[in-house]
């Protein structure tokens, strides 16, 4: 089962991609992008009332939700967001303590996974150069579709040193970028609870569709 674990719809202030456009795109590009589902990880927010079941049924694509929060160790994807987590943290605060996010999200039933770790300023690698490593990190986004040259490559050493699980996400902010990087799970993931369990379990790996997308556009 393949899920894109990191995507931003137009609910994020820097994205212009309506959710339904992502779904249409994935439906149309099914031969290139075998994505079974996406996880919306909007910046610094959580909409408890959002319900995408109609869209899921219409397009046959699983839609899960998380959030991308900002901390003193860079950006972190939070999966399994629930009332306890949103009561504990103000997602709009760009100076959250990463250690608190990792520890408390885990305690409250979710998973907090640093994203784009190789990115300057907002990636884990740079912070680990001058601060102690975080306790309790189970996985990092090893493959990020929005990374610049060299940023994903930086993550390999981090994973080897700390034994983190590695997953992938497109970090799409534009429709045509959805699903270009994703995560292949050995187990079925049909709910946020299963996603949290799967990320803790470790039976997954990043998958990269960028080359085949490029080739299909005639740019390989």
């Amino acid at each position, binding site marked *: 089962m393949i899920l894109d674990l990191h995507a931003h719809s137009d609910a994020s*202030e820097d994205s212009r991609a309506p959710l339904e456009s992502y779904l249409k795109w994935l439906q149309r590009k099914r031969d290139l992008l075998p994505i079974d589902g996406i996880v919306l990880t909007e*910046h*610094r927010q959580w909409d408890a009332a959002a319900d995408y079941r109609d869209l899921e049924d219409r397009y046959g694509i699983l839609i899960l939700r998380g959030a991308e929060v*900002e901390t003193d160790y*860079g*950006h972190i994807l939070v999966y399994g967001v629930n009332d306890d987590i949103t009561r504990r943290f103000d997602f709009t605060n*760009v*100076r959250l303590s990463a250690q608190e996010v990792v520890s408390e999200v885990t305690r409250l039933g979710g998973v907090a996974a640093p994203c784009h770790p190789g990115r300057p300023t*907002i990636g884990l690698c740079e912070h680990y150069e001058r601060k102690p490593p975080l306790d309790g990190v189970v996985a990092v986004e090893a493959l990020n579709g929005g990374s610049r040259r060299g940023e994903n490559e930086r993550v390999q050493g981090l994973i080897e040193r700390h034994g983190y699980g590695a997953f992938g996400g497109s970090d799409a902010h534009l429709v045509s970028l959805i699903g270009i990087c994703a995560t292949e799970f050995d187990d079925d993931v049909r709910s946020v609870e299963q996603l949290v369990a799967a990320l803790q379990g470790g039976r997954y790996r990043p998958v990269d569709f960028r080359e085949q997308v490029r080739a299909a556009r005639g740019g390989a």
Partner: protein
Amino acid sequence: MSRTIDRSMVGEEFDHTEFPRITEAQILAYAASYGETDPRYTDPAAAARGPDGGLIAPPTFAVSLRGRHFMPRELPRNIGRNGFDAGKDIEIGVPIRPGDVLTASSTVHDIYEKTGRSGTMTFIVFRTTVTNQRGETAAVVDQKMMFR
């Protein structure tokens, strides 16, 4: 680098401007300025026969309407001095026509921070709501400014 943003201005109206009556020449000049070719915006006679029943202003015309104050006077002290235009969103309402008397009300719609490759940024969204003489909304323009 770390600063606390003051959100107390959010919702505050900092400008309220009534513009002189919109003229046909003003609309035609605006359309010509970027090479518009659609007769709805460029040809009064053809527009009169079209779906709008007369010349209307191009959708982005509302952005050209500037009030007396682009931003609250005290904002730079509050946020920082190095700001730049970070983009606009325009929600189009009823068409703007020659003869309309438009009023623009500008408020601080949102202030938020985010972090990126280059560090912490503060964004301020100024919302200008343009209404016509009948109180109908012609456009809502969100102007985003980035400060650091």
